[in-house]
C-alpha cells in the first residue's frame, strides 16, 4: 500500500507539471494590464512602464515561465505583484479558514445526511422518504450563495444571532465558531443533500444483496440485520468518500466566502483575477490543484482501507 501511494504520487508529478504550464498560460491570457490595475487611472505612462518592468512583465514569456517554475521548485510562491505581500503568507493566512469551513460543512452533511438517509431507506416510499427526497433535491438545486443570503437575512439581520462580516479571529474559539456557523450551514445543506441520497441508495442496494437475504431467511430481526449487516457495509464507503466531497466543497466555498466576506482561498482567487495579480493568481491555482490531487489520493487510500476487495498493485 505504501508502494502504491508512492507510485500514485509519482504519477501526480507530471500531471501537476502540465497543470502549472496551463495555469501560467491562462493567467497571461487574462485581458487587462496589472500595472494599470495597480496604479490606477491617474498614473502616467512612464510610471506604468516602470512598474511593468519592475513586475517582470517585460521579460520574454519563456523567461517568465522559467522563473515561475524555478521559484516554485524552491518552494517560493513569489510575492503579489500588486501589494508586495508574499503569496505563501497570503495563502497560509486563509487556508485554515477555507479548510475549517469545508470540513465543518462535510461534517454537518454527515451529521444530518446519514440519519436522514437511513430513515428514508428504512421507511421506503413513506411520507418520511418522500419528504427526504424533496428536501435533498432542494438541497442540490439551491445555489449556495443564495442560501447564504437567506441565512444572513434571518439569523443575522432579523434575529441578530450571528455576525455577518469576516471570519473572526481564527484562534479565538468563540469568535471563530460564531463566524463560521452560518457559512458552514449554507455549504452543509448541499452536503446533506448529497449524503442523504447516497446513504439511501447505498442501503437499498445492500438490502438486495444475497447475504442480507440469507440473514433474513435465517430469521434475524430486521433491526439486527440493519445494524449488523446493512449499515456497516453501506456507510463505510460513504464516509471514506469524504475526501471527494471536500474537493467539491472547496470549490463551492468561493461563493459562501464572498457572501459572508470571509477570508478564504476562493476570495483570494477572485480578488487576484479582478486585480490581474498574476503571481498570486497562478500560485493559488497551483495550490488548488495540489489540494485536489492530495485529497483524491487520500480518498483512494481510505477507500481501499475499508474495502478489502480493492487491491493495490
Amino acid at each position, binding site marked *: 500500500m505504501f508502494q502504491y501511494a508512492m507510485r500514485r504520487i509519482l504519477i501526480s508529478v507530471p500531471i501537476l507539471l502540465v497543470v502549472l504550464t496551463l495555469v501560467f498560460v491562462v493567467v497571461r491570457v487574462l485581458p487587462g494590464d496589472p500595472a*494599470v490595475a*495597480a*496604479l490606477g487611472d491617474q498614473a502616467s505612462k512612464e510610471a506604468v512602464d516602470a512598474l511593468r518592468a519592475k513586475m517582470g512583465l517585460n521579460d520574454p514569456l519563456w523567461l517568465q515561465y522559467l522563473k515561475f517554475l524555478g521559484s516554485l521548485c524552491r518552494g517560493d510562491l513569489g510575492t503579489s505583484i500588486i*501589494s508586495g505581500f508574499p503569496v505563501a503568507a497570503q495563502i497560509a493566512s486563509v487556508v485554515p479558514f477555507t479548510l475549517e469551513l469545508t470540513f465543518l460543512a462535510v461534517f454537518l452533511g454527515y451529521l444530518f445526511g*446519514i440519519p436522514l438517509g437511513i430513515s428514508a431507506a428504512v421507511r421506503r416510499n413513506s411520507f418520511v422518504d418522500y419528504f427526504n427526497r424533496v428536501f435533498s433535491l432542494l438541497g442540490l438545486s439551491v445555489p449556495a450563495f443564495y442560501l447564504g443570503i437567506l441565512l444572513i437575512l434571518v439569523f*443575522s*439581520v432579523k434575529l441578530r*444571532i450571528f455576525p455577518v462580516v469576516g471570519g473572526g479571529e481564527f484562534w479565538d474559539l468563540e469568535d471563530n465558531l*460564531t463566524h463560521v456557523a452560518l457559512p458552514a450551514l449554507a455549504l452543509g445543506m448541499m452536503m446533506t443533500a448529497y449524503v442523504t441520497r447516497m446513504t439511501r441508495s447505498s442501503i437499498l442496494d445492500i438490502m438486495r444483496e444475497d447475504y442480507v437475504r440469507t440473514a433474513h431467511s435465517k430469521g434475524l430481526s430486521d433491526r439486527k440485520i440493519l445494524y449488523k449487516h446493512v449499515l456497516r457495509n453501506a456507510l463505510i464507503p460513504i464516509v471514506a468518500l469524504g475526501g471527494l466531497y471536500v474537493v467539491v466543497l472547496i470549490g463551492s466555498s468561493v461563493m459562501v466566502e464572498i457572501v459572508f466576506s470571509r477570508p478564504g482561498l476562493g476570495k483570494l482567487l477572485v*480578488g487576484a483575477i479582478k486585480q490581474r495579480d498574476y503571481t498570486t493568481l497562478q500560485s493559488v491555482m497551483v495550490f488548488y490543484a495540489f489540494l485536489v490531487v492530495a485529497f483524491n489520493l487520500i480518498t483512494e487510500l481510505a477507500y481501499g482501507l475499508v474495502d478489502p476487495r480493492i487491491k493495490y498493485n
Partner: protein
Amino acid sequence: MKRLAHVLLVSVFMIGLLWGLAGAADPAKDQSLSIAFDAGDLKSLDPHRAAATADRAIVDMMFNALVRYPPGNQVKLEPDLAESWTVSADKKTWTFKLRKGVFFHPYAGNPNGYELTSEDVVFSLKRAANKDTSAYAGDYGGISVDAVDPATVKITIDKPISDPLFLAKFANYAGGFIVSKKALESKGEDWFKTNPVGTGPFKFESYEPRQKVVFAANPKYFRGAPVLKKVTARFMPDVSSREFGLQTGELHIIEGLKEDKWIEKVSTFKEVKAPTFGPCETQMLYFNMSIPPFNDLRVRKAFSYALSRDVIANFMGKSLAVPIYSPALSPPALGALTKDEALKAGLVFDNNIELAKKLLAEAGFPNGFKTEVIISEMSSSYQKPMVAIQALVRKAGIDMQLKVVDHASFHSKIRENASPIVYYASWRPNEDVFLTQFYHSDSVVQKGKKPITNFSHYGLVDANGDGKVDSVDPLIEQARLELNAAKQEALWKEAQIQILKDVVAVPVIRLKYTFPQKSYVDLGYPLEWSWQTYSPQITEKTKILAHK
C-alpha cells in the same frame, strides 16, 4: 439512531444560539471603529503609490504632509507638518518651518519612533519625485528640496507657479505625504511596502489580504492622542454584505452606492444616517476625434444636443447628481466655468433633438449612424449614465452599442485608443492637472509625449474643420506659469470655453458620494467636501458615542 440525530441537531443549534447571544461588550468603551470600502483589496500601503479610494483613505490615516486640506471642508489649505512658510518675491524659493514634537510611529528597530526632521521631508519629497518609487513623479519636475537646518526645509522651483498650485503639491494627497527616512533606509523599499511608517494619528498594525487593514491609535500624535483605540478598514466589494454589516452594527461606516433610492432606504435603517458629500467625480463624455464620424464637429454637436443633463441627473438621483457645464472641474473648484458663464458664451448644447437631427443630416447622416463604445462594468459611474445616454441619443438616430468590459480591461482598452467615445468619471486636485491630463496634446493616448488620459486627441487634430490643428496647450501652459491667482483662473476659463466651442467633450454630471454611517459615530468635523480621500477621513477626533 434517529433519536441520537435529533439530540445532536438540537444541541448544535442551542450551542450556536447561546454563543451568539453571549458576546455583548460595551462598544463605546472599546472605541474600535470598522469602516468598509467597496474594494476587493488594498493595492498599496505606500502613500506615493496609493490611488484607489480605499488606499487613499488608508494612507491618509497614517501619514501627514507639509500642509493639509482641513478635514471635511477641503477648499483652503492649512498647516500640517509645517507650522509656517514664506515665499520669495520671485516665487521661486519657498521656506517651510517644521512643527516641533512630531514623532514617527515605532517600528522594528526603532521601538520608540523618532522625531521628524527636515531630513525626512527632503528624503520623502525626493522619493515622491523618483519614478521608480512613486506614481506621482511627474508632479515634481524642476523642483529641488534642501534641508536648511533640522527644522527648516527650502524648496526651489525652476519655473514659478501660483501659490495654490505650488502648495497643492505638498499637501496630504499623492506625492505630498512624508515618510520615514530612517525606516526606509534601514529596512528597504520592499519592507516598507508592507510596513508603512508615518506620523499620522493611526499606525499600521496588520493586514490580511482581501480582508482588512487594522490600525492602532498613535498616542504620540502631534494633534493629540486619538479617541479611537483601533480602526479596522475592510475590503468588501459586495454592497449587500456592507449593508448587512451596517445593519448588525459590525460596521460603523460603509462606502455607499451612488444611487438615490438606495440612500433613501439605507437611511431608514435603525441608527443609520447617509449624508452625501462632494465633489467626488465629474462624469464627462469625451469624443475620440481620431475615429470617424467624431472627427466632425457637427456630429459631436449633434450628439451633445441629443443629451439632456437634467434627464440624466434625474435618472442618477437628485440628491447625488448635479448637472455640470464645464468640461473640466466644476465649481466650487477654483477657476471652474460656471453654468451662467457657459450659458452666456452660448456653449450649452443640451436637450434639442430637432437640432441634433438637423446637424446629423448636415454632416451626412440623415438616418443617424451606429457606433460601438467600450464601457466599464462599474454601475453608477459608467453603466448607468451611459445606458441613459444610449436611450437619449437613440431618439436622434444614433445607435450607440455598449460593450461592457471589466474595469481593468476598460482602462487598458481606452488607453489603446479602442473606443470612439470614452465616458470617464474622475476628479483631479485642480484645473491645471485636469486640463493637462485630459486636453493637453502631450497627454494624448498612445501618441502623446506623456500619454495619460487625453482620449479625444485634442491638440493633435483639427477639431473645428478649419484645416488647422486646434489646441489649448498654450493656454494651459500660460495659466500654469501665471503667478496671479485671479489671472490664472481667467486663463483656465478661457481654455474651457475653447474646449466647449470645439465640442471636445460633453460635461454631463457631477456625482456626489455617500458613506452611510451609524448615527452614533461622530467624525469630529462636519463633512461637506472630500476631494483628497473621496471618503470621510478618520481623524484623531473621530469617536464612537455611547449607545445601546
